[in-house]
């Protein structure tokens, strides 16, 4: 059996001539947090809806827990909690009543409602009508709903949307804890890399319906470039010398930039100094994950 809890093969969803999702092979390992990244409208929510059977794929296959979703939907969904896009709620009911509706369908004990209310820290407002909730509270209610019954797989679509910084922090901590405390596998979608970077083990980057990267955060970092920045005296001699060493050099603002090449900064420093060139500044600039994410999504847009 595969080690992936979620596995899709060539998943396609077309709406008329528009392909919202185009041949996605999603692979989410068991017990990990998977960050599903992509700009707004990239196809994240459509993919998640296909994972839940809300949308039927035009082509391709969805397997959850090693079984095809199409023929095992009910058994699979018993083990899945989800919050797709904005949280769903009945505004005229209280938080408790909302959760109780889901609890009844899942045939869980009443204590489960109190447990999830506590997890998302809504116990004190459990009797308040949800229409009077702030967006952040509604978001937390949506997460509580997804946590009912301690599912083995949690699908959260943009769970921190509309939350204030402390709320984001709280939800992030909660998501981070889940695989350790309950063995839960979590797929979190977001359009903000910095959010996913702090919690995910694996990431998938989707752009215009296509998966343009999938792997660990370390794999993603490798995709970034580094630039060596040198301030030397005399500049002209340093430039000639570095070019003679076979590197491409750019001169900007009185500094030398050696981009996209594997240069050992210590070795470079040594060579310059030994040639009587004084090195006043030498630093290496590595792309942040955010920059890598932006650059790969931009590259894909150009194609």
């Amino acid at each position, binding site marked *: 059996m595969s080690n992936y809890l979620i596995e899709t093969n060539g998943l396609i969803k077309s709406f008329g001539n528009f392909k919202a999702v185009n041949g996605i092979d999603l692979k989410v390992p068991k017990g990990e947090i998977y960050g599903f990244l992509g700009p707004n409208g990239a196809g994240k929510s459509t993919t998640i809806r296909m994972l839940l059977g809300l949308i039927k794929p035009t082509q391709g296959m969805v397997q959850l827990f090693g079984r095809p979703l199409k023929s095992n939907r009910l058994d699979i969904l018993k083990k899945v909690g989800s919050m797709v896009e*904005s949280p769903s709620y009945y505004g005229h009911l209280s938080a408790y*009543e909302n959760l109780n509706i889901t609890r009844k369908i*899942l045939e869980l004990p009443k204590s489960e409602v109190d447990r999830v209310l506590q997890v998302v820290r809504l116990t004190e407002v459990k009797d308040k009508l949800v229409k009077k909730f702030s967006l952040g509270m509604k978001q937390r209610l949506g997460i509580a709903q997804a946590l009912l019954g301690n599912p083995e797989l949690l699908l959260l679509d943009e769970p921190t949307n509309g939350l204030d910084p402390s709320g984001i922090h709280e939800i992030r901590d909660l998501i981070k804890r889940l695989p350790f405390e309950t063995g839960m596998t979590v797929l979190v979608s977001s359009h903000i890399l910095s959010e996913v970077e702090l919690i995910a083990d694996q990431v998938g980057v989707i752009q215009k319906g296509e998966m343009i990267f999938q792997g660990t955060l370390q794999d993603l970092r490798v995709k970034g470039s580094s630039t060596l920045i040198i301030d030397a005296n005399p500049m002209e001699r340093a430039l000639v010398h570095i070019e003679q060493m076979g590197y491409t050099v750019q001169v900007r603002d009185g500094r030398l930039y050696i981009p996209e090449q594997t240069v050992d900064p210590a070795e470079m420093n040594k060579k310059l100094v030994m040639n009587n060139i004084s090195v006043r500044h030498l630093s290496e600039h590595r792309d942040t994950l955010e920059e890598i994410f932006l650059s790969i999504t931009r590259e894909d847009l150009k194609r």
Partner: protein
Amino acid sequence: MKLVQLIGTELSKQKRSFLWLFLFIIPLGTTGAMLLDMVIRYDDYLFPNAQENGISSWEMLINENHGVLSWGLFLPVFVAVISAFIHQNESKVDNWKNLLSLPVTRGSVLLSKYLIILVFGWLLVLFNALGLILVGKLTGFPESVSFELFGRYVLFQFISLLAIAAIQNLLNVIMKNPIFPVVVAFVGMIVSGILMYQHQQIGKFFPFLYPYIAGDLGKFGFNPDIAISGGLIYGAIVFMVGLFVFNKKDIV
């Protein structure tokens, strides 16, 4: 199939809903209108007229309610409103995605909605009939209440609603705005009024006319059996169509 749980949750969703108010206000209105009718016209016109036609005061009252007040014509619109109340819970903040992400079949979800529309529709019919009995009692009808007559009146309407509830359930699944199915029912009511007077043969196949036919005690010469068979046949076929459409539908 989690039908029982789903029906239970449908009822829970109606907590603090205006649907309960609707359920009492409409029969209250019909009861009030019929009471007024009896106070003004019973002694001088309606009672002597009923005797002349060989019908009881209770039969006359049902005719007044069903034909003169047009309860039978309005009933599909009332059921459409009930259906809109039930479906708007899911469509208002896109709750369909949450409900259908749970381990439930779409068939059981659709059936639970259908049954709950029917239950509320039946309650409306029942409260209307109970209101009529109250009116008769307050007016002081000389005949005792004919439970057989009221039983038939209520039961036939119940069965005729099988078709209306299935149609409204289907329309609410297809249409995102819950108001449109109510508009369809309203148009259906107007068409029913035309068919009733001018094209009775076509009217036999028009489901929005069935609640009227179900309570037609001979005034327009319809056979209430049409409402029974039509309600059952349309109810089954339209529900199956709804199921097919709902199963195919993408929840986007």
